[in-house]
């Protein structure tokens, strides 16, 4: 039992790395724009289909496609905010919420029209590769995705901490008027932040594809998980998203082990509801 639990924890931790990446994008968008981005899962799904097309049609390995998909998804996110979400919502909270929901509905069903509801997978040479560490069998692609996710999180962190753009994003998040007085244009920063949040999904898609299937509904698998992480870690908190991602990865894995496959997913939703009701500021109150 101890070994199974350990295996389950490790497995959950590794999956948690990708969750953290998805949640980092969501928390960035929330922290800066103060909007709950319901389109997040759908954008991830879109990126996964993009990666799948590259792999299945052109034979490009998902890991090699990572830089390309990240760039493409940045462009997608930036334009989406600039031309759709920002434009039609005019800063009204409920309108933004519904606009991101509308985008999600459009994207999910566009995928359904283009690709039908079938699930698709690709097989890379390392899909089933495992590494033996003591008594544990560790999936190589999960290990890779965990490592790359941490590297990307570190890159994002230093971008936010060290560059003028990163500083401007953090500044606009808390004090948009003060930022304007420095000559910063918040509307551009908003599109930039939405673009970066979406770009992370491009990377996450490439890391996910070797180990996960893709279908038009796959976004909803991740979206509630990502929201849970973001709420648990504290909306807008970077370390919160990272630690929350790992915690939720393990919670899900152990939940599945203890509660069984069909009841397991309830653990995520319960953590989510409990956090919202009992500690809506999350574990890392005020951290940023």
């Amino acid at each position, binding site marked *: 039992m101890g070994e199974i639990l350990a295996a389950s924890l490790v497995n959950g931790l590794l999956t948690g790395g990708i969750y953290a990446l998805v949640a980092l994008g969501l928390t960035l968008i929330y922290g800066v724009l103060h909007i709950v981005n319901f389109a997040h899962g759908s954008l991830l799904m879109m990126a996964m289909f993009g990666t799948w097309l590259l792999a299945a049609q052109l034979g490009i390995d998902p890991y090699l496609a990572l830089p390309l998909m990240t760039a493409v998804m940045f462009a997608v996110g930036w334009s989406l905010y600039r031309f759709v979400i920002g434009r039609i919502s005019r800063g009204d909270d*409920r309108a933004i*919420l519904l606009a991101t929901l509308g985008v999600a509905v459009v994207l999910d069903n566009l995928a359904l029209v283009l690709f039908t509801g079938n699930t698709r997978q690709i097989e890379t040479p390392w899909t089933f590769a495992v590494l033996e560490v003591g008594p544990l069998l560790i999936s190589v692609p999960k290990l890779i995705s965990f490592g790359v996710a941490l590297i990307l999180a570190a890159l994002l962190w230093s971008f936010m901490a060290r560059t003028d753009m990163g500083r401007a994003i953090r500044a606009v998040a808390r004090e948009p008027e003060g930022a304007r007085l420095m000559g910063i244009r918040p509307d551009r920063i908003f599109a930039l932040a939405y673009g970066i949040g979406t770009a992370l999904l491009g990377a996450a898609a490439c890391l996910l594809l070797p180990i996960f299937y893709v279908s038009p509904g796959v976004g909803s698998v991740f979206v509630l998980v990502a929201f849970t992480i973001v709420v648990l870690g504290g909306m807008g908190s970077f370390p919160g998203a990272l630690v929350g991602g790992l915690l939720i990865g393990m919670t899900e894995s152990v939940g599945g082990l203890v509660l069984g496959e*069909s009841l397991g997913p309830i653990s995520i939703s319960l953590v989510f509801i409990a956090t919202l009701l009992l500690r809506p500021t999350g574990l890392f109150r005020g951290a940023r």
Partner: protein
Amino acid sequence: MKRAIVIAGITAVALAPFAFNSQYLVNIAMLTALSAVMGQAWNIAGGFGQMTSFGHAAFFGVGAYTAAILQTRWGLSPWLGLPASFVTGGLLGGFIGILSFRAGLRGSYFALVTLAFAEVLRVLANSLDFTRGGLGINIPLKQGLANFQFHNRQSTYALVLLMLVLTTGVAMFIKRGRFGARLVAAGENEDAASALGVDLVRTKTIGLATSGAFTALAGVVYTQTYLYIDPSIAFGVERSIEMLLVAMIGGAGTIAGPILGAIALHAVAETSHFFIDAPGFAPLLYGATLLVIIGFLPRGIAGLGARWSRA
């Protein structure tokens, strides 16, 4: 005079399906009316009280399962399912409302928590023996009025129409009364409302419970019509989104909105087949319509109507 014409028009549209020969068309009319019932129920919470729920499927599903379990497990008359579901839907609304509003959740946070509650119920329904898990529940075919199963769609349509009239009447009554005014005030501006003596938690919770109760009724009709219910049909996100779309596109907070929204949505669905006949195309258009409405017609189709009638 103008009023008389409007009433005559509405009556004609509502009664037309009884003259249809095609069961296909009657079925569309029935589904449209059912969407309108759900939209109207969503509207009581999401429109009047601005509680933008993303998880109203929770109420629909609880209604559907209450009715299904009552008759398959305990052999009770499906007609009893209506009041029973009304109660369970209302209780669930009260439960979610008290928890959420005491914790001060609103806006996106409220949307998220409702979504999560629906998901919890879906997972539970999917894994408990009580609900027969992922297999879902089959209602034995036994047609007859006493059994709430009709062999022609006209009868179902008549029932749903009655339900729509009832829900709309209740919505109208609420909107015109003291409770509705305070619900609208709480939705518009919590501080101002509470300064005028509105108990926010109580008002919003009752609003959500009422909304949940009427949504649950739609779940019963669904079960009795299709004689089958499973966790994703009952609690899936698509169901929640459908109600929200109907109300938002038609015009949240107005009485005519959800009805107009349901008609618009089903008109789009039926005509879209002629262009691209693929699953997903109609909902794709719904999503696009929602974006257009938010961007250009924030008060929905009903808002457009109000503009015309003033012109």
